[in-house]
């Protein structure tokens, strides 16, 4: 089912736009991938002796898969709060450029900063990817309502998945657990690849993958940041050089 055309009266109400956003969780394969990922996080949290309430709170308030996996594994393996906080914050740096690039797509001259707080919170890899796909088909003045619907819909799916994963944990075989953990890189890689619109995007993706193993050899402790900054800047250089 496709979204209504841009000039359709369906877009006249914000509530309708919210509902279109919420129902759009059925229009992306990433919802299934998130479901499976958060099934895995629920199981991981159970095995690491965190409570179900803690797990659900981490999904609602952190809302970033990689950060949650890092938090659970580091705290579970006996790291200090400070060590966990540093690992989480390094993984979360990517949220800064994501928020910066996503917000202009839904801002209108009337939009106040406080209207964007919830969208900033909901912004994570999946929402960032889907904004580029969905928003061109949503009238600008309804984009905020649409994204609130889509984002809260995805959070709800993940809270349900957490609960199921937590309760299933005892029955998850190592084979299935490995399969669930593999879903994340596969889905993130392919959805980013599909979203590559310009050469700069392709260069950033490929170089980001290739430079990471090299960055780990430097042993700085900030591997993802180093490879990301270098690969992203080279990709921007390619973009600039082609335009010049």
């Amino acid at each position, binding site marked *: 089912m496709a979204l209504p055309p841009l000039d359709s009266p369906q877009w006249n109400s914000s509530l309708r736009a919210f509902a279109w956003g919420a129902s759009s969780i059925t229009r992306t394969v*990433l919802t299934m*991938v998130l479901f499976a990922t958060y099934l895995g996080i629920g199981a*991981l949290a159970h095995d690491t002796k*965190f409570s*179900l*309430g*803690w797990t659900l*709170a*981490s999904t609602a*308030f*952190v809302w970033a898969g990689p950060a949650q996996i890092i*938090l659970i594994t580091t*705290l579970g393996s006996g790291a200090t709060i*400070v060590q*966990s906080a*540093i690992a*989480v*914050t390094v993984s*979360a740096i*990517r*949220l*800064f*450029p*994501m*928020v*910066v*690039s996503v*917000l*202009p797509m839904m801002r209108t001259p009337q939009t106040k*900063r406080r209207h*964007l707080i919830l969208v*900033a*919170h909901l912004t994570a890899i999946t929402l*960032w990817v889907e904004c580029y796909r969905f928003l061109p088909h949503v009238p600008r003045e309804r984009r905020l309502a649409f994204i609130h619907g889509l984002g809260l819909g995805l959070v709800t799916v993940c809270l349900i998945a957490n609960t199921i994963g937590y309760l299933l944990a005892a029955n998850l075989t*190592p*084979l299935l*657990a*490995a399969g669930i*953990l*593999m879903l994340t890189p*596969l889905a*993130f*890689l392919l959805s980013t*690849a*599909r979203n590559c619109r310009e050469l*700069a995007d392709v260069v*950033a*993706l490929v170089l*980001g*993958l290739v430079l*990471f193993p090299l*960055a780990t050899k430097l042993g700085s402790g900030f591997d993802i940041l180093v*490879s*990301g*900054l270098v*690969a*992203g*800047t080279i*990709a*921007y250089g390619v973009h600039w050089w082609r335009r010049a």
Partner: protein
Amino acid sequence: MSNFIGDWHALVTLFIAGVIPNQIWRMFGLLFGSGIDEGSELLVWVRAVATAILAGVIAQIVFQPPGALASVPDALRYSAVLAGFLAFISIRKSIFAGVACGEIVLLTGKWWLG
């Protein structure tokens, strides 16, 4: 109910080690991103860095696998990613086909190796 929440200290730890270090970057984005134009050159660079950092997260899970994924041999993990990408390319850029193919390679390979 106390079982559902568990230890209150753990919730405090969640906020100090998880929520704040994570949210701070979103709030920076909200504070400093407001003035940036959608078509600006700065945004092209920022987007490229975000894409490359995401690529790094993907690479980290594959090269330094967490938990149960670490029990899968390196070559099998790389083969699964390659198979998934080839299926994605050859079947009309379908994410579903790519993910399914990668998973089939990983699961049957792991099952066969025991």
